[in-house]
């Protein structure tokens, strides 16, 4: 076992995630080595960028198999932003691309126009949005969001959004110009945040802390 591992696949602001974990008093290693990834105590898949590039980078480094191996151990796994989107089965970002498939679901474009073709929202969705219980949730007990009060704000930066098939997997949504966006998913020990906990002030650190104590 090798503690908390942040997967280095050449994308995203890895240092900030590392700092966030360190602020929770945990040792953390940024690693690309599939062996280290498969044997981590806790695994984090961060990322900012395009879905296809992300999957390619993971594949090229032999990290997809390492992640699949890790998941079988049922140890805690957290995907952040693109890292959460890659947990889905596929993405429609610039063509159809296969994801890690840990959740059944798709990643789709955040619509900018309404049915009449009028622009109603800007993308990327950049900024702080409040988390709300999803339609399947009355509370966040025993989840990664356990310590978070509803309506707390988190920092989002993205142009695409995940749509998991099973609504029970969606813990939280955020409303963006009239659209409910999947903000947080969890299926036993596999978790994902569309927002950046490492960039969301003290409440973001609370989520990292919870992840580290699971």
């Amino acid at each position, binding site marked *: 076992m090798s503690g908390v591992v942040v997967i280095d696949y050449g994308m995203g*602001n890895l*240092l*900030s995630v590392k*700092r*966030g974990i*360190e*602020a929770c008093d945990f040792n953390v290693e940024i690693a690309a080595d599939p062996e280290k990834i498969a044997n981590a105590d806790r695994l984090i898949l961060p990322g*900012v*960028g*395009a879905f296809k590039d992300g999957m390619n980078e993971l594949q090229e480094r032999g990290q997809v198999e390492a992640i699949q191996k890790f998941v079988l151990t049922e140890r805690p796994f957290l995907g952040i932003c693109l890292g959460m989107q890659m947990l889905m089965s596929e993405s429609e970002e610039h063509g159809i691309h296969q994801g890690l498939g840990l959740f059944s679901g798709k990643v789709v474009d955040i619509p*900018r126009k309404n049915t009449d073709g009028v*622009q109603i*929202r*800007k993308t*990327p*969705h*950049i*900024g*702080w*949005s*409040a988390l709300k219980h999803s339609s399947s949730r009355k509370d966040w007990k025993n989840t990664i969001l356990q310590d978070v*009060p*509803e*309506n*707390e*704000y988190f*920092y989002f*930066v*993205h*142009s695409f959004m995940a749509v998991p098939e099973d609504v029970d997997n969606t813990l939280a949504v955020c409303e*963006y*110009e009239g659209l409910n966006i999947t903000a947080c998913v969890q299926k036993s020990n596999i978790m994902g945040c569309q927002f*950046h906990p*490492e*960039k*969301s*002030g*003290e*409440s*973001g*650190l609370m989520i990292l802390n919870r992840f580290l104590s699971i």
Partner: protein
Amino acid sequence: MRNVRLIARLDVKAPNLVKGIQMEGLRKLGDPYEFAKEYYKQGIDEILYTDIVASLYERNSLLDLIKKTTRDIFVPITVGGGLRSLDDVAAALRAGADKVAINTAAIKNPKLITEVARRFGSQCMVHSIQAKQNRDYWEAYYDNGREHSGLDAVEWAKRGEELGSGEILLTSVDREGTAKGFDLDLIKAVTKNVSIPVIASGGMGELKHFSDAVLQGGADAVAMAHVLHYGLVTVDEVRQQAIRHTIPVRIPGG
């Protein structure tokens, strides 16, 4: 309306935080990290560091500043000043920055905007425009407001969006450091012509200037320098002003 972001803008001439008027006559104010930390405690939404000297020597100390900042400041950090290439951008991101603001290099080589957006995502590419009123239009300046480009700032903003910028940092050179309020006509002209977020910068001296920039100018975010550094207002007072004018903002603690 989406939540309007409150951004602290820190102009750095290593190792100091500095502040000038209309980008000239710089005064040293202290350690930029300490200022950033104070704003983080006050609940700032984002930090923006601008290296106003942008020499090679300065670059390293700016990277050190970012690294130090990411240790205990957990909000998005944008870095601008002297970034000329994809390698410069990569170095800033590796140091812990989330976005880069590019002005001079984009004027000299507009393709850089596209290259940065393609490699790191458009959300990472902040198109910095320094605009100065010039008879009947606003002209884009570079080299920290010293050189003029001949470009119409509004047209340049539109072009930047087409090239792949994720947002625009719009600084009025005329108002910068004057505390006389934002150039609302400039902000309006740009926000009407682009569909990416626009950060209003340059001129805030009191709370009303903030709400004017949002309600009249249509700004998606407001960058504050002078007004915070000299303690004229606190982040929370700006937030209260937003709430009074039903401008949606992040409220830390829900």
